[in-house]
């Protein structure tokens, strides 16, 4: 089993292509849509998680690479500026996946990129601009 999270940026002419359908049907992958932001005639932004056998995930990725779209691993999109964090724990209960986490003592907050699904909830919560989604 392999999982891969990617951010896809689609040009206008590709927005109406059944990319997710192809990934499921032709490559036998499970696709979770984590975020989607599509503006007709402009550009689309899709955050998806592909899971399945390693071979199939790789084939799915190769299919995506063959399209005229920009692909970035999800982790690159989220930046947690640790130097700006005051470790207040304000964001912790809001994070749905535990990507933002407090230690046992409740003193230090840490960020685990792998768990982050880019839901952006913490961005609204953190008063100090610590988490940045770089689109």
């Amino acid at each position, binding site marked *: 089993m392999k999982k891969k999270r990617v951010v896809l940026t689609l040009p206008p002419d590709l927005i109406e292509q059944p990319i997710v359908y192809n990934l499921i049907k032709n490559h036998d992958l499970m696709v979770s849509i984590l975020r989607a932001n599509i503006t007709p005639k402009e550009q689309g932004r899709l955050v998806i998680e592909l899971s399945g056998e390693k071979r199939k995930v790789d084939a799915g990725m190769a299919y995506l690479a063959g399209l005229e779209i920009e692909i970035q691993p999800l982790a690159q999109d989220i930046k947690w500026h640790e130097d700006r964090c*005051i*470790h*207040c*724990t*304000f*964001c*912790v*209960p*809001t994070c749905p996946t535990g990507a933002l986490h*407090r230690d046992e003592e*409740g*003193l*230090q907050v840490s960020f685990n990129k792998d768990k982050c699904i880019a839901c952006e*909830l913490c961005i*609204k*919560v953190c*008063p*100090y*601009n610590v988490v940045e989604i770089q689109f």
Partner: protein
Amino acid sequence: MAKTIKEINERIKKGKAVVVTAEEVIELAEKKGTKKAAQEVDVVTTGTFGPMCSSGAYFNFGHTKPRIKVGGGTSFLNNVPAYTGFAAVDIYIGATAIPDGDPRNSVFPGEFNYGGGHVIEDLVNGKDVAFVGTGYGTDCYPRKHVETLINIKDLNEAVLFNPRNGYQNYNVAVNLSDKVIYTYMGMLQPRLGNANYCSAGQLSPLLNDPLYKTIGIGTRIFLGGGIGYVVWNGTQHNPGVKRTPGGVPTSPAGTLAVMGDLKQMSPQWLKGASFTGYGVTLTVGIGIPIPILNEEILVHAAVKDEDIKAQVVDYSQSYPQVQPGSLGEVNYSQLKSGTIEVNGKKINTGGISSYAKAREIAQSLKQSIEKGAFLLTEPVALLPSADAGVTFKLLNERPLRKTRGK
């Protein structure tokens, strides 16, 4: 044997004072007993680092040539309006001020990316800030417009002056309604989705001197990374609330008005903060030394999170509509554990005030005192305490008379 502040200062000067933080004193009192601990310890240091909306700073930016009187005119720092109702070139900027063009909550929830709190942080950070001022022109102050970059180092005075800081205890905010709400206690998820609290608990200054026996007007403090003073009680100072047998208030009570030289302060301890759907504020670092003059003062300073209780308040209805009533009482040890129980439901908690930073402040103040770089002051007057008969009033609204004199 009781000590005096003078004696403690003598020991500080000789590098012999025993200084512990409000966390360290807990263990010490448990180990040695409060009597012995009170004899040994000279000073307990406290700390807090949280958003405090009633904060601001005043400046004298120096006379222009020819002169302008922005007093009665307008002034803006990085587009954020500052108050000009003073003399020619004195202005005051409040932490919650927002640029005139900010959409505020018209696109809900507003982002409030920049405001007074951020201007103060930028100035303290040594950044140039755009200043635009207007005056109406007089014979002695003919100029009507000024537009320039200013820098904190060029100002005659830059003084942080906060009418209400250091709240002694605070509510725990929850949301009983069916929709998300945006408050000064943060984003609250519907149906008790989360609970936010805002106090450093056992490290918080006024919770370690609950009856204001040592902290008073003239107390020298750590303020924003520099040195400041308590100058008055804060606004809404409400010492008459319910207290535990140990004297600790179980709801918001005392407050402090503080001031200090902004030029000495640091952006690490004064941070502009944006609360989605609510507004802008300033997060302020404060640390207050408590001289251990006798055993009673030590017992107070040894207060633990378990012994400090706070009220869980619904911010969808109770708070905005000023309806009394609490959904329950929890202590800070529970709050810091990450979950509390309200109405039989387990809720995750989030802190707004940073305990980690409160600890750093208490440690840094401890080190300054140990080095002899920070001496204690004798307060010139104490703050009104639990027995002072202070009442906390709501506004009594009365209709305006539309046709005066008729």
